[in-house]
């Protein structure tokens, strides 16, 4: 036997059984890709996408135990499975609302569907990567698909501009992350989180600090934390609104999940470096995001800044690097999915009508014309502001408790104060809906699917807010899985 044969002989066949969700999602994407070439039936394309993703989501439930497969490059544990399930479900909710919107805007492309699914596949790879290489490649698949999705608005200069900004900034982020990976590899000689942990332990020198700092900067750029947020408002405003919802909810949650996994599994004992870094970024994000949002007249742009502020609230939990903080982060990011997607789908439903411009003036008297929808928007706004009994309160409360349990008082104070500031713009929407007479005549046409999506998400925001135990338990279990996996190969 030659040396190469000896090296290869030890490797078995990867365990494809635990990869079934990914395989189903990939097949769905390729199927839609081929189908889109041959058929003009738009209903068929969206049906195939939704059914394929639904099967993928169900197949996640059949995987009972975790495994590391593909030669240590892919980990299937409860953490990744749970996140993948939520990612797929919310992608479905975004996809079903896509067709009516893009048709009314005369900007239909069949390509939307498989680009979204490819992006989803990238996120699924990202959340289940125990290795810097698969993490990087998943991040890249997600980002490249999203750059294209932002620019897909026919004959709209703004959309191209937003996509271009996003491409340049995102490309810079990717480059920074690859510098960080190169430094980490140079330092430890390995890409595996577990090996990195064994090599690094609690030693920290200038090289490791720079590497972790660069990694934080790159990931913060992807998660749109201030001061790396400049692409966010433009890209969010420029993209077709259901796509914005997809980016603001699903993409972001995948990014938070991967941030948590990289930081906790690769550098668990160097938390002094990264918890401080994330704390500063989170604090600045909360302040800048909320104060700039106050000035916005366009509600879509306002929600984009609010999503920057929420990046701050969620990542603030990393300032308390213990089980409590991680649980708070997972809980808040899971429930943030409901609020963020709901808010943007609400806008997309109304935006279908020609005389709706997303301007705050358009909200005047909405409660008279569409009482139920206005109530849903009220729930979203209260939830993002953090008023009980909505779930936003529970999320912020969890982060707050985690912060004060670790004695990070300054960040807890920033969180509370900026939340109060945020009332200025969230409540303005509510006030415009309920306290003004309608300026424009006529009701808006709304699609039943959109009504269902917005209503379902709003009810979930209330239900989880009143009874958060299930989600809190899930977050607890995921945290313990994450901590148990430290250093395990």
């Amino acid at each position, binding site marked *: 036997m*030659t*040396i*190469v044969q000896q*090296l*290869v002989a030890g*490797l078995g066949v990867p365990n494809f059984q635990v990869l079934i969700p990914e395989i189903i999602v*990939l097949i769905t994407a390729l199927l839609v890709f081929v189908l889109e070439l041959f058929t003009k039936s738009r209903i068929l394309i969206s049906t195939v996408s939704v059914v394929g993703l639904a099967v993928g989501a169900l197949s996640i439930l059949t995987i009972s135990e975790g495994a590391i497969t*593909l*030669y*240590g*490059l*892919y980990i299937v544990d409860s953490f990744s499975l749970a996140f993948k399930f939520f990612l797929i479900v919310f992608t479905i909710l975004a996809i079903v609302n896509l067709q009516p919107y893009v*048709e*009314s805007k*005369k*900007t*239909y*492309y069949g*390509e939307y569907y498989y*680009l979204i699914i*490819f992006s989803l*596949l990238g996120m699924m*790879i990202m959340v289940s990567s125990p290795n810097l*290489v*698969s993490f*990087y*490649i*998943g991040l*890249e*698949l997600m980002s*490249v*698909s999203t*750059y*294209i999705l932002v*620019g*897909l608005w*026919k*004959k709209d200069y703004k959309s*191209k501009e937003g*996509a271009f900004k996003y491409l340049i900034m995102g490309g810079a982020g990717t480059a920074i992350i690859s*510098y960080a990976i*190169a*430094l980490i*590899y*140079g*330092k*430890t*000689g*390995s890409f595996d989180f577990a090996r990195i942990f064994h*090599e690094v332990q609690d030693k920290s020198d*200038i*090289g490791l600090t*720079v590497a972790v700092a660069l990694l934080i900067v790159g990931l913060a750029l992807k998660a749109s934390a201030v001061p790396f947020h400049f692409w966010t408002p433009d890209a969010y405003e420029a993209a077709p609104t259901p796509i914005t919802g997809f980016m603001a909810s699903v993409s972001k949650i995948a990014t938070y999940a991967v941030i948590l996994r990289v930081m906790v599994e690769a550098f668990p004992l160097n938390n002094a470096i990264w918890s401080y870094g994330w704390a500063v970024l989170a604090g600045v994000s909360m302040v800048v995001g909320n104060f700039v949002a106050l000035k916005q007249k366009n509600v879509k742009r306002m929600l984009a800044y609010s999503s920057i502020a929420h990046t701050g609230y969620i990542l603030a939990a990393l300032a308390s690097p213990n089980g409590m903080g991680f649980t708070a982060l997972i809980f808040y990011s899971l429930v943030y999915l409901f609020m963020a997607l709901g808010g943007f789908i609400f806008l997309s439903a109304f935006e279908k009508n020609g005389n709706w411009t997303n301007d705050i003036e358009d909200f005047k008297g909405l409660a008279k014309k569409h009482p139920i929808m206005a109530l849903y928007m009220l729930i979203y706004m209260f939830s993002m502001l953090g008023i009980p009994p909505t779930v936003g309160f529970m999320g912020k409360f969890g982060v707050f408790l985690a912060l004060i349990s670790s004695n990070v008082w300054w960040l807890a104070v920033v969180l509370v104060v900026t939340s109060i500031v945020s009332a200025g713009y969230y409540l303005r929407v509510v006030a415009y809906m309920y306290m003004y007479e309608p300026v424009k005549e006529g009701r808006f046409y709304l699609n039943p699917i959109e009504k269902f999506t917005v209503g379902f998400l709003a009810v979930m925001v209330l239900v989880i807010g009143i009874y958060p135990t299930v989600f809190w338990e899930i977050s607890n279990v995921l945290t313990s899985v994450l901590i148990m996996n430290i250093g395990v190969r």
Partner: protein
Amino acid sequence: MELSVVAFWVLSAIAVISAIGVVFFKNIVYSVLSLISTLIAISGLFFNLGAELIGALQILIYAVAIVVFYVLVISTVPQYKGEAVDPKYALLSAPFGFILFLELAYVSVYGLWASNTGIFSPDIFKEISNAKAVATLLFTKYLFPFEVASLILLVAMIGAILLGKKDIVEDEKEGGA
């Protein structure tokens, strides 16, 4: 002096001088030509170190593919925009260049020892070539990222076609159906 040492000094001198040329030539075509010269000199350095695979890749990817890309960009950008050396940008790039230099120096001084671990010891390299060693890893452990990279290329290609093509506006013909 050994021949490899002579080769190192000659190649690095060419690389440094042509790199200075890239920055200071007024004519943008001369800049690209000296960039090619830099890249070929660097690939010569790789060959000199015994890393024949990286040397060949350097020529294939940088000196051919990326330079062709630059030439395409130059031929589309108007001449006057690419002429002057702007001292403002030169000043701005100095600190970043210095940081990059520090980083590279750090990696090459400290990184060398750590990354020299793993299954491929120098003894194995004597027996098999560089290309075989890289291929063994690429098609076993790193097969998965390799395959996903093909998906990324597919998506990027679709995106380029989609954003670049002229729109046939079907919806307006059908009256927004």
